[in-house]
């Protein structure tokens, strides 16, 4: 017999967890006491939402399930945006929340919140533990559900008294969930049909989505494209799925993608969707997909196939496994003319120099200075697309952002998680002045743990993307300005974090050299013209 809180920590160790992100409180103290006595590293964030975002960044870089912990009531509700963010981008998380004692549930007591009810629609599954003896099964199931099939967050709500009970500590070897058996292997007949559709096409095009990054099927996708001769476009979440320096690489599609990549989709007669859910931001409400186009859709989640666009060949299963099987049989198509057409459509970016910093050029300059394994985390807004469009995602590098939810304030804490997962890699977080201030408190976490993270802050004293929409739709009237922005470099300095403010393109090289050369966290604030466009 073991105290449940201590058993929980043992289960975490069993699952290979060595780092958790959290913020303690009254009704999670038993777990915290057990954590204190363990070898698990606990990163104390400054607000719970950051715990979920950091666990998210950690999961995406490490390939493991991220774990975050908060107390009941406000601690749990602060996690909500982070949980929803992970859900929309299919990131495996196990979220632990404290809960008021079992006997008090439902009586609106101090710091009580129905967190399982609240997160029902954006967790893959959740548990309110009512019987401490079920904890071994619940933890085993939670990690299994979070990390298999289409990954996602799973929440376990732990009433205070349950944490203190004594339970037998037998961690089950296997899981047995009747209603959960994700399809892994692709259906042989469907694979044959997919290959046939590809063989019959003239201008086939692969659309790689975030699923390729999640399932780490990069090598299989590369082989698939090379063996078949099919060129590749990708979604925002699929950035990094295919090397951007490859002859088959076309570019990012979508409402904020490159027009030549969108044009390529319009010209194709067959699309092979690989781990892409054809979100509205990708297909522009399916507008860019021609009516009579053939579609092969490969995804681990059957519910994504046929949800937005009709599909000729649905193919459910793990991308890596399916592509491997297809690679055994696929025949090379003569796509030379098609590749040539696509090649001539590509336009080279030119960067104008104005009186302030050109953010697109800044990302290009930075991209040139980063090493081959750098991780680039973009926040949300204009900075997200400046980064997505101008950061070179060479093989070995990684790009991540909050794609589905579009959560401002994601960038900084996610980058913290990324750096902790891979201390040897360069990690850069790009944000705007809006998103930066939504997670500004994390400067405390960064300073306290001396996280060697480089922050690039594009400051235009506005919510640039909102301003752009307002200007386009309503004319010049009424845009939101972030008045009285602080002196960000001084603010960082108050936390003991070094920084530099850059007001022109000429200073970029020196500033990035200084940041990347510095050991420890560093802030580069770039002053940007509010009229700078996203695209």
């Amino acid at each position, binding site marked *: 017999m073991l105290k449940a809180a201590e058993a929980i920590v043992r289960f975490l160790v069993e699952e290979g967890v060595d780092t958790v992100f959290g913020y303690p409180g009254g009704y999670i103290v038993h777990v915290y006491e057990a954590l204190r006595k363990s070898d698990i590293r606990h990163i104390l964030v400054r607000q719970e939402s950051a715990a979920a975002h950091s666990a998210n960044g950690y999961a995406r870089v490490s390939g493991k399930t991220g774990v975050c912990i908060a107390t009941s009531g406000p601690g749990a509700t602060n996690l909500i945006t982070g949980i929803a963010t992970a859900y929309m981008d299919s990131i495996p998380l196990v979220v632990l929340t404290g809960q008021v004692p079992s006997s008090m549930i439902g009586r609106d007591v101090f710091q009580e919140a129905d967190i399982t009810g609240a997160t029902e629609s954006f967790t893959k599954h959740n548990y*309110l533990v009512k019987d401490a003896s079920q904890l071994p099964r619940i933890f085993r199931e939670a990690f299994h559900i979070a990390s298999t099939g289409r990954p996602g967050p799973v929440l376990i709500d732990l009433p205070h008294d349950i944490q203190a009970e004594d339970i037998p500590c037998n961690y089950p070897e296997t899981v047995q969930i*009747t*209603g959960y058996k994700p399809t892994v292997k692709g259906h042989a007949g469907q694979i044959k049909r997919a290959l046939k559709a590809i063989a019959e096409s003239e201008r086939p095009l692969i659309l790689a989505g975030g699923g390729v990054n999640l399932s780490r099927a990069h090598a299989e996708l590369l082989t698939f494209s090379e063996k078949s001769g099919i060129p590749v476009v990708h979604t925002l979440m699929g950035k990094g799925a295919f090397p951007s320096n490859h002859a088959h690489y076309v570019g990012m599609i979508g409402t904020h993608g490159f027009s030549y990549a969108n044009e390529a989709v319009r010209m194709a007669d067959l699309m092979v969707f690989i781990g892409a859910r054809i979100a509205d931001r990708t297909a522009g409400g399916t507008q860019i997909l021609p009516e009579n186009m053939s579609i092969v859709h490969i995804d681990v*989640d*059957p*519910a994504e196939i046929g949800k937005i666009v009709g599909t000729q060949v649905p193919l*459910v299963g793990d991308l890596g496994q399916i592509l491997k099987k297809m690679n055994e049989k696929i025949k090379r198509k003569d796509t030379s003319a098609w590749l040539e057409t696509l090649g001539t459509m590509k336009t080279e970016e030119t960067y104008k120099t104005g009186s302030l910093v050109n953010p697109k050029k800044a990302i290009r300059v930075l991209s040139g200075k980063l090493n081959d394994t750098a991780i680039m985390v973009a926040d949300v807004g204009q900075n997200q697309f400046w980064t997505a469009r101008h950061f070179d995602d060479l093989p070995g590098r990684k790009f991540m952002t909050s794609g589905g939810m579009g959560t401002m304030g994601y960038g900084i804490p996610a980058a913290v998680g990324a750096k902790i997962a891979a201390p040897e890699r360069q990690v850069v977080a790009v944000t705007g002045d809006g998103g930066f201030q939504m997670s500004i408190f994390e400067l405390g976490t960064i300073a306290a743990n001396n996280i060697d993270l480089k922050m690039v802050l594009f400051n235009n004293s506005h919510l640039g993307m909102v301003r752009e929409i307002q200007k386009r739709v309503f004319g010049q009237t009424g845009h939101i300005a972030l008045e009285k922005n602080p002196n960000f470099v001084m603010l960082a300095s108050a936390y003991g974090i070094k920084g530099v403010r850059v007001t022109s393109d000429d200073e970029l090289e020196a500033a990035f050299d200084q940041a990347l050369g510095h050991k420890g966290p560093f802030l580069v604030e770039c002053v940007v013209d509010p009229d700078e466009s996203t695209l």
Partner: protein
Amino acid sequence: MSVNNRHVLSVLVENQAGVLSRVSGLFSRRGYNIDSLSVGVTEDPAISRMTIVVKGDRYILEQIKKQLNKLIDVIKVIDLDKDKSVFRELMLIKVNARENSRASIIEIVDIFRASVVDVSNETLTVEMTGDEDKIEAFISLMKPYGIREIVRTGLTALERGSKEIKSYKKYGEED
């Protein structure tokens, strides 16, 4: 576009707290309409079975089945064929029945093989089971007497013959 047909889904779920909320929540947040939902435990006390009547075209029905199957607590979902299944609903109905009308009401009750379960000076309470058509027909015959209250369980259904829900493949395994 196909028409908004009615479909009767039979859904096996884990008999656990929160399942009903997960299923009904899924319908409301994705904008699917439930006509009725009934639930009860099965031959296995760990498993419950829901009968859900929904309206929707083929796309909606496909989405409902796929999204239901994504719920961890959902074990199996089948779309019951109207010609191969038995549908029943139970209704309790309280109608005005003074001395002068009581006999004629009981006559109708007998024709429908329903039964009177309570009598008062002013009312009769009738219990009846049947498919939806039978129940609707009975309600319309009771209208002239004055209906005080109606309570219905919602449709419940089972496939005819020896086939069981468990013999169906799980969604995604098919084709």
